[in-house]
């Protein structure tokens, strides 16, 4: 590659940094949605690059279902301290406690859907006018239709059929009072790009992404982590296995991968050979063909 060319990871990085700077310039009070997963960790890394040597001009917002892997929270708190950033946490439990949300019951109970209410509540409480998310178009077919700058009405709703055309590098963040934007700087990245970039830039990740022993059980072909709040069916048994997370979400819906990969290069090889998408192991997407579209319309991530 000669000096006139740019490798594709740098090209994606240039685009994402441009978008983050547009957000800082066009909005008053931006939040960066931080889950502790690899995509949001890459987002934070890009934000640091975009504004160096200044502190990142975004508040980190974590929508917490209460069903976390402990490592995620430890990692989050360490990163926040390093950045000197402001962190706000929206607790799903709080809305359940004061009766604004009702917990699902049954074996597949998950707090995934309840996150939407907490997310919208958090945006309203802190008066965020924009929330940066780590969503990628390659993850899911409804996400493939998402804009970089995605307008939300005063109810936080997404109207996929009536989106603003987005051309060149010109991003229209104009809106009325009470409305907000969701912005997705990683839109054009694929799962492979994310891993390659983590490798290229040597980005620190929670240990959950690497192989470790964990108590798990198999539900309908998906390996789930055992935790005290997980309700087991009579036929399901807890076994200890060598696993790693391919994505990190709420414990109740994060499928685990049996793996011995303990370096980034091992993980990249594994991804290159894999024949299932990373969301293929997320039970939150399996509920229906349009599960993601429906959730997104209501204001999900």
């Amino acid at each position: 590659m000669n000096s006139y060319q740019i490798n594709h990871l740098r090209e994606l990085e240039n685009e994402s940094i441009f978008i983050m700077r547009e957000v800082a310039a066009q909005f008053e009070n931006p939040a960066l949605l931080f889950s502790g997963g690899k995509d949001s960790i890459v987002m934070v890394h890009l934000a640091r690059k975009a504004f160096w040597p200044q502190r990142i001009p975004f508040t980190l917002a974590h929508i917490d279902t209460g069903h976390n892997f402990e490592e995620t929270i430890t990692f989050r708190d360490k990163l926040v301290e390093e950045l000197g950033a402001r962190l706000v946490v929206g607790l799903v439990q709080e809305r359940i406690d004061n009766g604004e949300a009702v917990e699902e019951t049954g074996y597949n109970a998950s707090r995934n859907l309840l996150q939407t209410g907490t997310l919208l509540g958090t945006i309203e409480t802190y008066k965020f006018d924009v929330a940066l998310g780590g969503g990628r178009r390659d993850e899911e077919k409804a996400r493939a239709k998402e804009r970089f700058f995605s307008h939300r009405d005063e109810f936080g709703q997404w109207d996929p059929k009536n989106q603003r055309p987005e051309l060149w590098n010109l991003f229209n963040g104009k809106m009325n009072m009470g409305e907000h934007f969701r912005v997705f700087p990683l839109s054009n990245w694929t799962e492979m790009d994310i891993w390659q970039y983590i490798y290229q830039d040597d980005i620190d990740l929670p240990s959950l992404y690497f192989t470790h022993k964990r108590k798990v059980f198999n539900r309908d072909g998906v390996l789930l982590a055992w935790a005290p709040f997980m309700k087991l069916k009579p036929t399901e048994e807890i076994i200890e296995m060598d696993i790693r997370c391919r994505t990190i979400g709420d414990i109740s819906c994060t499928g685990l991968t049996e793996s011995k990969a303990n370096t980034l290069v091992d993980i990249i090889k594994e991804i290159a050979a894999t024949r299932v998408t990373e969301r293929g192991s997320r039970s939150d997407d399996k509920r229906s063909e349009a599960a993601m579209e429906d959730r997104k319309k209501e204001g999900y991530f």
Partner: protein
Amino acid sequence: MSEFNSDAYLDMQLLRFTTAGSVDDGKSTLIGRLLYDSKSIFEDQLEAVHRDSIRRGNETIDLALLTDGLRAEREQGITIDVAYRYFATPKRKFIIADTPGHIQYTRNMVTGASTANLALILIDARHGVLEQTIRHSFIATLLHIPHLVVCVNKMDLMDYDQITYENIKSDIYKIAGKLKIRDLRFIPISALKGDNVVNTSKNMDWYSGPPLLKLLEEIDITYDRNLDDPRFAVQYVIRPQIEEFHDYRGYAGRISGGWFRPGDQVTVLPSGLQSVVKTVDVFGNSLQGAKVTESVSIQLEDDIDISRGNMIVSRDKQPMVGQNIDLMICWFNEKPLKHGGKYAIKHTTRDVRCIIKEIDYKMDINTLEENTSDKEIKMNDIGRIRIKTTQPLYYDSYTKNRITGSLILIDEATNETVAAGMII
């Protein structure tokens, strides 16, 4: 990719292309084949499409279901919006902007074309050049897509006949003359049978060029962007309020033309003040230089008042500066363009307002004729207009620089993006 090689992977380039053609031209089949043969479709995606196809009573797998992401699209069997697809080979990563053939055609194709290096135009070998081929070629040229690849598809249905292919080629050359296409290439293919898509076809030995995927991997895109005229639209001013970097004042932005290197003599617009580039930084590293599309932070030797929307340019290669600007526009909104109307503009990192002074003509994109009698520019129309802006813009013609030569118009009442503009 059997064995992972990090260095090879870091050598990959990114190519963005758009596909044009209607469903019947075999566009979905072609995209499906590129994705499938490059192993970019995963088992669970394929299973889901297979389930859907059966539920709909289709006999074969309908690959369009892979890209039609919205409920309404799947229910009606139409594509409403641009869909982005990704695939990679060991040489390049590709982003496909797949644009629907019928509804909102212009709006979607213009959107997909705005960032593309290359346009794929599909022609059904049985039907030859149709009105829509002219439309597609025109939009690709208007948006100044550097490379145009015409795939003459369904060659298997014409017994792989060379004469059919040559006739279509010469018909395209007739249009190409009118359109001033820069780099035009042809490939005879059968997306269904796989001829000349990934592998060279054994059925058309009279064709000596590369198969499509090889062309996509190898076409030179280095000079697709302007590397000659240094332009840097200031996006954000970095002023860290910390002890260690007390004096740091960096102008953050993405280079919109040429190169910037320490020591370069520059002028700042609109003030006209001159200075010299001190450093070009990325995350604590001072670079020897950076070029168009790179996101950097630039420090100057002199303390000048510079803010978002200002432009740092080369002293001896300055852009045009003016308030009266001629444009080609594509209109996107149900409310037609208003003669004498006022709109907000986004151009580089600037926000200004404008008034529509003149509507010169509306373009008939099927015949390529300029219509000067009907000047009402409605949804999906293309026309030439003149505007006057509240503040001068610093710009280049769109054909010289797609970044400094493009703008969008915004309706101030609804905040909607209503038009794309290309400066003449």
